[in-house]
């Protein structure tokens, strides 16, 4: 194999060197011819040696012994060279394309460029100052109509989402989030769910910047005439095929909210993201 590669290198070298010069190979300078000569001579010698035991056979074209060899042997060199070129060009293109897609300074970094301190005291750390023995929950009337997250400049009306064939359907529109209307209402005890698209085919959608949320950020849900405020407690990425149903949809002792969108590796064949981003928030 190595010999063959060397031979290929010789051919290429000769070809390149001669192209700018004479048009014709017949009148090539002797010096160039010398480089190829040993290879050719060796081949002729091998061919002769093989042919020696059958002297009775009429000789055909003694000047072109290569023609007698198998088709694959003649094809091997161009095929190997072609495969090599294909590999080099293909991988180089992929590498260059990927590098171009991930610039050193990501303009989408947004607020990450300057991350502030993580706020604490979510949940009823504040409410506990009141009386947890009072028992009466905060009853908020009306359906949720709007979600606002100031830290990522999000303000969206809410559509209603339902479960179809077991799975929660995403919002119909890309510029609008939706709440799971068969589940807990945001502001009631339990895990309320609001989902939104991260992007459409054209570009970023309503929940594109959801990934920038950090614990302590406030999420406001308009419900009737009042606003229920939630505080982000944590964010988590899950592969969709290992979605933690219990953590996201399981019962909770207090008023909670989950914001869900997509992310991670995008599967071009399935036109689907591998992961879900879940932002956990608690009222207060």
């Amino acid at each position, binding site marked *: 194999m190595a010999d063959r590669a060397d031979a290929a290198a010789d051919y290429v070298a000769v*070809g390149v060197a001669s192209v700018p010069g004479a048009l014709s*190979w017949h009148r090539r300078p002797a010096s160039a011819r010398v480089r*190829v000569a040993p290879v050719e001579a060796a081949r002729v010698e091998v061919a002769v040696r093989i042919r020696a035991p059958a002297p009775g056979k009429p000789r055909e074209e003694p000047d*072109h012994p290569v023609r007698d060899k198998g088709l694959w042997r003649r094809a091997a060199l*161009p*095929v190997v*060279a*072609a*495969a*090599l*070129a*294909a590999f080099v*060009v*293909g*991988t180089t*293109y*992929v590498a260059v*394309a990927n590098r171009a897609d991930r610039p050193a300074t990501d303009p989408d970094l947004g607020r990450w460029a300057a991350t502030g301190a*993580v706020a*604490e005291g*979510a*949940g009823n*750390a504040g409410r*506990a100052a009141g009386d*947890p*023995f009072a028992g009466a929950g905060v009853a908020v009337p009306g359906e949720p109509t709007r979600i606002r997250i100031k830290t990522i400049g999000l303000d969206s009306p809410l559509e209603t989402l339902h479960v179809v064939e077991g799975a929660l*359907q*995403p919002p119909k529109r890309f510029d609008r989030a939706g709440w*799971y209307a068969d589940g*807990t209402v945001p502001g009631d*005890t*339990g895990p309320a769910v609001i*989902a*939104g*698209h991260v*992007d459409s*085919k*054209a*570009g970023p959608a309503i929940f*594109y910047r959801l990934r920038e949320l950090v614990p*302590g950020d406030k999420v406001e849900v308009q419900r009737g005439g009042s606003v229920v405020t939630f505080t982000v*407690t*944590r964010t988590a990425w*899950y592969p969709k095929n290992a*979605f933690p*149903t219990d953590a996201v*949809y*399981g*019962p*909770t*002792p*207090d008023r909670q909210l989950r914001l869900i969108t*997509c*992310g991670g590796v*995008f599967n*071009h064949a399935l036109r689907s*993201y591998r*992961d*879900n981003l879940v932002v956990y928030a*608690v009222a207060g």
Partner: protein
Amino acid sequence: MFIRTPHVRRLGSAAAVLAAVAVTTLFAAPARAAGDGYVRLAHLSPDTPAVDVYLRSTTNEIKPQTFKGVAYGAMSDYLRLPTGTYQVAMRKAGAPASTKPVLTTQVGVATGGAYTVAGVGRFADLGLRVLTDDLKLPDPGKSKVRIIQASVKAPVLDVAGKNGNTIADGVPFATTTAYREVNPGKWSVQVVPTGGGKTSVLPCTLGAGSVYSLVVLDDKAGGLKPQLHVDAERQGSVPLGGVATGDGGTQPGSPMPMALLLASLAAAVTGGLVVLLRRRLRAA
């Protein structure tokens, strides 16, 4: 293509170190915020007068809290607390905080854990007990309920639905049953002293996927007073898996089609060139 093995190995270890660093930085920050659990407090000792309950963190995670005048039968809402160890102390109602508490106990709060710290038993042998509350999602289409027996007038009792569906049999005073999955819907829970006595009925509705504690107290009139507490709640059916919230418009297009095209072009050109060159070489 022809990278020597030591280089590959070095590259591998460098990648491993990078990955380790990335993992630590990614998970170090949210870890602090992720740690929250729940604690609620209860007074379940029939002949013990009202108490003041003191809650403090042994590692100063929260400001110390005091709940004044907690009487028999009272059970607080859950307090959301950072993980850690907490001390719960009870003093006679109105007693100065400097006096020695009547009872103290410690509760270790794990991430996502829920605990009920209750004063149980008769006044003579009063104790503070830490109950672990299992708020995990019950099986699909089921509710979870347990009995907390705090009635000394019916030292052992049975709990069942009106239609005869048993919830628990022979529950002794000052004990708590394990959670049991039951069918959701309207219930007419009947509590009756084992061996006969006056039956107390509690009409209630259990939600699918929600978790309840039925506390049986002594009534002032000499009967039983069952109370239903919601430990954790949710509404609606549980969606399966994740949500398809993205069409990939913000993701770079797949470089593969173009890479393949370029690779095949390169293969054709190189292969053709090699064949051509060789032919001309031979012809010479």
